[in-house]
């Protein structure tokens, strides 16, 4: 009897709930970036690296001389880039603009007669918030993707193809750029 009383009291005092806060695991798929691959404009099935490419959000930095936080890639030969999109308000048309600078080395070198070629792309989409979990909250996905290259006299981008118009995760390529 006394033992039971003791047990009741001790367990009751022990069990005043301590809840562990959940942590959003890094492996959880949350707000995805836009995955872009570069293809050859002639042999359209072949991946083709862009020479000395630098990519950065418009307005974040101008003419970077070194790799910065704002440069997603800098002065690198690559055939794939991933672009973090502005989320903006839900169910509204939002846009993100990036500068894709080809031949960055020509701007950086001593020779003033040659320069890099900057093309600006504008990505438009509608934002949608999707529930993930109690630890991660909501993520954003982007639907109705469209992509335009801002006109200039010397474009190195020839064509753009949207492979996946809904950006839900980073497992698939969403956009192909031919050059």
């Amino acid at each position, binding site marked *: *009897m006394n033992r039971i009383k003791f047990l*009741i009291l001790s367990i009751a005092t022990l069990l005043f709930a301590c809840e562990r806060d959940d942590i959003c695991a890094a492996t959880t798929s949350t707000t995805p970036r836009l995955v872009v691959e570069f293809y050859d404009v002639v042999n359209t099935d072949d991946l083709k690296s862009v020479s000395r490419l630098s990519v950065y959000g418009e307005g974040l930095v101008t003419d970077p001389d070194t790799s910065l*936080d704002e440069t997603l890639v800098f002065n690198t030969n690559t055939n794939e880039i991933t672009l*973090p999109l502005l*989320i*903006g308000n839900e169910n509204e048309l939002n846009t993100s603009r990036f500068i894709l600078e080809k031949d960055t080395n020509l701007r950086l070198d001593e020779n003033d007669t040659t320069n890099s070629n900057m093309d600006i792309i504008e990505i438009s989409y509608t934002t949608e918030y999707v529930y*993930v*979990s109690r630890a991660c909250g*909501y993520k954003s996905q982007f639907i109705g993707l469209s992509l335009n290259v801002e006109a200039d006299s010397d474009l190195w981008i020839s064509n753009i193809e949207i492979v996946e118009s809904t950006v839900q995760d980073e497992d698939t390529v969403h956009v192909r750029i031919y050059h």
Partner: protein
Amino acid sequence: MLLFSLIATAQSEEIETVKDTLIYKQKYGLRLGADISKIARTFVDDNYTGLELMGDYRLTKRIYLAGEIGNEERTIENEVLNNTTKGSYFKGGIDLNFYRNWLDMENMIYAGFRAGASTFSQTLNSYGVYNINNQYWNEQVSINESEEFKGLTATWLEIQIGIKAEMFNNFYAGFNVQLKGLITETEPNNFENLYIPGFNRTYDSGRFGTGFNFNLSYLIPIFKKDKIVVQEKEADE
């Protein structure tokens, strides 16, 4: 005294036994109580308000009809969201007493089986959009318009292991732990049930939940039944 023990040892070779029948009065009735832990937590925890009333009715020597009724309001708050669940629940089932009581005592070590049902609402007070790349555009998206999800329901099955002890006349204190398995739930659109009144918090990993209860209760005796105990006893000379 000394004389007695001498006699006892002298006779130990040839003890005669007779059957002795003892009769204890056992109280049967309605026991009503409340979960003290929920009341205490209401005062201590700003994010919790709750009350649970419980009752059992003794059917046989070992079987009790038992149930709980309650109301809870719980706010779950973390870095990414803030949600308030409000609602009521009912649990009904039986308790099986496994404890062999001494003499006229009426304590319990029991296993309880319950079916539970809850109706509730969730209000998502605020949330954030999780983006590991948000430092790129230096954008933090958080939404502070609250959204209410009404008419949510859930049902579950529950096993309880607990004890109840008579502290003094007709007044009991008890404790139990609960393991629950969710059977059905209505999920809100583009959200989930983070907390279900009576079921407690849900887990991402599965349909199981846990709980505990620290209760005080009072037995209203309705009738008495005899408990007959047959003992082997040394024969008196």
